[in-house]
């Protein structure tokens, strides 16, 4: 059984052709892929990632995250090189010696890049422009055993890695999946160390945490073994059941479906309420940051995901929300300081941000999508520059910002501020729940359908009687208001607002979160925020991988490009968006199955749209 066979609706698997001969390699493809991988290896090495991540062990005294990064590439390349294009009329060969040889060679070429780098590092010193051209890098790459060893060992590692990667193709799918899951889980559990250790200690099981994780981070050998074993067993036996369970839930209808959904929501809510009680303030801080970005991402999701308006200046609403809350609640605000309670200020925040959304939205809403993107970016920058300027510093404090903002007082019971991250998390959770509910209801409302119609084809939507201008403007305003909630919480959580917290960078990071998670998909957006902000960190907030902070923006950029190329519908896509993005392929599939008998020119129109 292969992966394609399991996908519902895919064409049945054709008979496998006999394996290709090992020496009939496609040498040009091999050289090209190997060279690209070698280039990537050298780039990663010179970016300083391995040296920095070497401080982060995955398995105590055996493997650090730095080596995982450069060591995984030969395996990946060795596996990818054996991939066959599945196309109607082209035979698919069984895996065999061809894949093994191709994998080994490609892996060796990829790692040869590092061998060359080791040789160059020994003989030249160009640290002047390239800051990471350092003795540490040489030591790391040669395992502290001298350059000759370094050159040879990488050729060896590459060949072995490539062999493993190619060999994975020879295994039955079930075994392959089990092995990959085991490796991935070990890395994941080690990355999630802070969270897992905190959680385990929270339920008074410190000895378990100590046994599981080494003193300076990383899984202990026994910890890694147990993790791999559990993951392996779960992947080997559990996958089929998981699939069956999901199919069962999806096949439910009526009240049974509602019951299953509410059970799931209740369970999630219970976990989200209990977990913060068990973990320490550091982890709660992390959770609160993730929550703030979930809120922002849900807001942007309405604008970008549902209405299809690419708003690059979304940070403007975050900023306006923050500043409005700060001005209205802080005693130290320069001009206006009514010192409202936070919840009263929130009403003003909604009104002000809604108006700003209207003001920014009205001029841009008629523009073409790409002009709109740049112009909103311009507005985002203008708003920050205005907050920063001397001209308005009498109101907003200029570069000094507004400091000493009080916390959020909740009905006189307790005050939630930065010293109480657990409280902040619960507050954020409440607003996230509101945002999720609003998004969920809107998506299924008349307005939501209008948004999606506008996103898919504005002209047709207009012809259907939708007032596209008003509908898009509403999306803009709703998104703005959701973002302003996050801003208002942010101001009172951090206790100060500065213009430098509202760089365009923030917009970009939220955009990456939305696109990575899946435009238009609520679950996807939440998962995207949790993964990216939680693990890598936000623009200024550290994630679980604090060592990564220098590289997270690089990764975000690469991720954005890769998602657009490989999976534009995102990690957890919304069904409708997927159909829209892959319309051509759906049509082709249908045509192959004989469901569409004529080419209605739709694919053709898609093909020329972007050009002029």
């Amino acid at each position: 059984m292969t992966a394609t066979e399991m996908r519902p609706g895919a064409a049945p698997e054709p008979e496998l052709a006999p394996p290709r001969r090992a020496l009939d390699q496609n040498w040009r493809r091999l050289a090209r892929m190997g060279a690209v991988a070698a280039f990537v290896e050298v780039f990663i090495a010179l970016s300083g990632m391995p040296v920095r991540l070497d401080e982060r062990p995955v398995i105590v005294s055996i493997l650090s995250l730095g080596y995982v990064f450069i060591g995984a590439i030969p395996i990946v390349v060795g596996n990818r090189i054996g991939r066959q294009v599945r196309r109607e009329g082209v035979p698919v060969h069984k895996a065999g010696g061809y894949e093994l040889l191709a994998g080994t060679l490609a892996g060796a070429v990829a790692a040869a890049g590092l061998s060359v780098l080791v040789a160059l590092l020994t003989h030249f010193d160009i640290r002047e422009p390239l800051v990471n051209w350092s003795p540490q890098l040489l030591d790391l790459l040669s395992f502290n055993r001298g350059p000759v060893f370094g050159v040879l060992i990488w050729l060896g590692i590459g060949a072995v890695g490539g062999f493993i990667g190619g060999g994975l193709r020879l295994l039955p799918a079930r075994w392959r999946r089990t092995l990959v899951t085991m490796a991935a889980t070990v890395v994941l559990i080690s990355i999630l160390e802070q969270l897992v250790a905190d959680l385990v200690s929270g339920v008074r099981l410190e000895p378990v945490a100590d046994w599981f994780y080494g003193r300076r981070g990383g899984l202990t050998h026994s910890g890694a073994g147990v993790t791999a074993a559990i993951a392996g067993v779960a992947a080997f036996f559990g996958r089929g059941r998981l699939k069956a369970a999901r199919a069962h839930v999806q096949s439910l209808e009526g009240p049974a479906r509602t019951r299953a959904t509410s059970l799931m929501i209740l369970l999630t809510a219970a976990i989200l309420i209990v977990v913060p009680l068990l973990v320490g303030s550091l982890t709660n801080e992390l959770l609160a940051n993730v929550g703030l970005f979930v809120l922002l991402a849900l807001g942007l999701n309405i604008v970008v995901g549902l209405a299809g308006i690419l708003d690059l200046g979304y940070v403007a609403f975050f900023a306006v929300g923050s500043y409005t809350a700060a001005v209205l609640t802080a005693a130290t605000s320069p001009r206006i300081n009514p010192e409202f309670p936070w919840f009263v200020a929130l009403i003003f925040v909604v009104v002000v941000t809604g108006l700003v959304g209207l003001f920014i939205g009205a001029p841009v809403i008629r523009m073409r999508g790409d002009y709109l993107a740049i112009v909103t970016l311009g507005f985002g920058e203008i708003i920050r520059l205005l907050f920063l300027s001397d001209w308005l510093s009498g109101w907003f404090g200029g570069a000094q910002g507004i400091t000493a903002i009080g916390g959020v007082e909740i009905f006189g019971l307790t005050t939630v501020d930065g010293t109480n991250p657990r409280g902040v998390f619960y507050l954020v959770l409440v607003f996230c729940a509101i945002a999720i509910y609003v998004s969920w209801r809107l998506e299924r409302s008349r307005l939501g359908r209008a948004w999606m119609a506008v996103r898919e084809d504005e002209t047709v939507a207009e012809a259907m009687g939708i007032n596209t201008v008003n509908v898009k403007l509403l999306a803009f305003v709703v998104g703005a208001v959701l973002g302003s909630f996050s801003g208002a919480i942010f101001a009172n959580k951090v206790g100060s607002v500065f213009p430098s917290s509202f760089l365009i960078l923030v917009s970009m990071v939220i955009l990456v979160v939305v696109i990575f998670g899946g435009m238009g998909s609520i679950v996807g957006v939440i998962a995207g925020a949790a993964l990216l902000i939680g693990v890598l960190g936000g623009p200024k907030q550290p994630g679980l991988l604090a060592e990564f902070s220098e590289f997270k923006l690089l990764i975000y950029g690469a991720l954005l490009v890769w998602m657009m190329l490989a999976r534009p519908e995102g990690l957890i896509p919304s069904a409708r968006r997927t159909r829209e993005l892959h319309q051509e392929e759906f049509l082709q599939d249908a045509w192959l199955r004989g469901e569409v008998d004529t080419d209605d020119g739709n694919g053709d129109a898609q093909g020329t749209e972007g050009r002029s």
Partner: protein
Amino acid sequence: MIGKWAPRTGAPRTGVDKFLTLLRVLAVGLVLVGFAAFIAQEINTDNAFAQWANPDATGLSGAGFRGLVIAGISQGAMYGLIALGYSMVYGVLGFINFAHGEVFMMGAMTGWVTSTKLAEAGLWESNFIGSFVIVLFGSILVSTFLAVVMERVAYRPLRGAPRLIPLITSIGVSFFIQNMSIVLFGPATKSYPARPDWVKNKHTALQIEGDKIMVIAAAATSMILLWYLVERTKVGKAMRAVAEDAEIAALMGINVNRTIVTVFAVGGAFAGIAGIMWGIDFGSVIGHTGFLPGIKAFSSAVVGGIGHLGGAMVGGLFIGIAEAVGPLLILEPLGVSGVSQLRDAVAFAMLIGVLLLRPSGIFGERLRAEDRA
């Protein structure tokens, strides 16, 4: 032209329309009142109108004004050079290559590497012209290469995808290149080696600094070369044909892929020239250098009429002069304090203003009918 301003019969006037009209009137009014106040203050800072607008106004000296205009022109020439890349790519592929500003930044970064190496060898001081040519070619080479790789890796697989997809991709590319330069070269500000005196000194009756003369000369030369390339060579003919209609061009035997690569390469080369000019004029570069000039250059392309090459340069000069002079000319007379901080805000406001008043730019867009807004 007249038709654009005539009321659209039958189209309902919504609240948004009224608001937009109000905004247009306000924008024009602000500029006019600010300019009138400026003139009033130049005549005599004590007259009633000038006093009403800004009691603390001091007026602007003629020399100061000239200096600003010259700085604006040289800055604008750089924007224009970058804008050519935006405009050409837009003309051919119909999408905004958001990462083009980073190509410019990498040009400036390469210039920093080569010029410091040359300065270490002592050539930068002893033979400035020779080293400048080497540095210039280094930058052009790297920028061109980067632009071509970008097209191959990120944009070619997306040809024909829905319009926003390549735009989002280019945002990712921009993010990536920006941070790539930071992780490879470090986050510190990179200073160019000291320039020889004649570059710093002022020349001619107009008192123009040497570096500004270099920038303007480079921009003029580039424009002439580009004009020759596009209008007089076979490659240029192919570019124009692909811009007109890629499919028909392909049917006529034009290699569309190669033409698109050429467009990226030429745009990258101009961005490289602009990068070097930036480095020599401002003396430093960091990873974020590309962002603002990139956006302003895009604004220039829009102001001039996107897809129109001469328009890109004119738009660049317009934006350059406007952001240099605008704050002092319009905002200062109205009593806004710290106007120089609002330079960038003025540049963005210009973009928004132009799109509000005349979305097709000064020379009009060169777009197919269905692409027009």
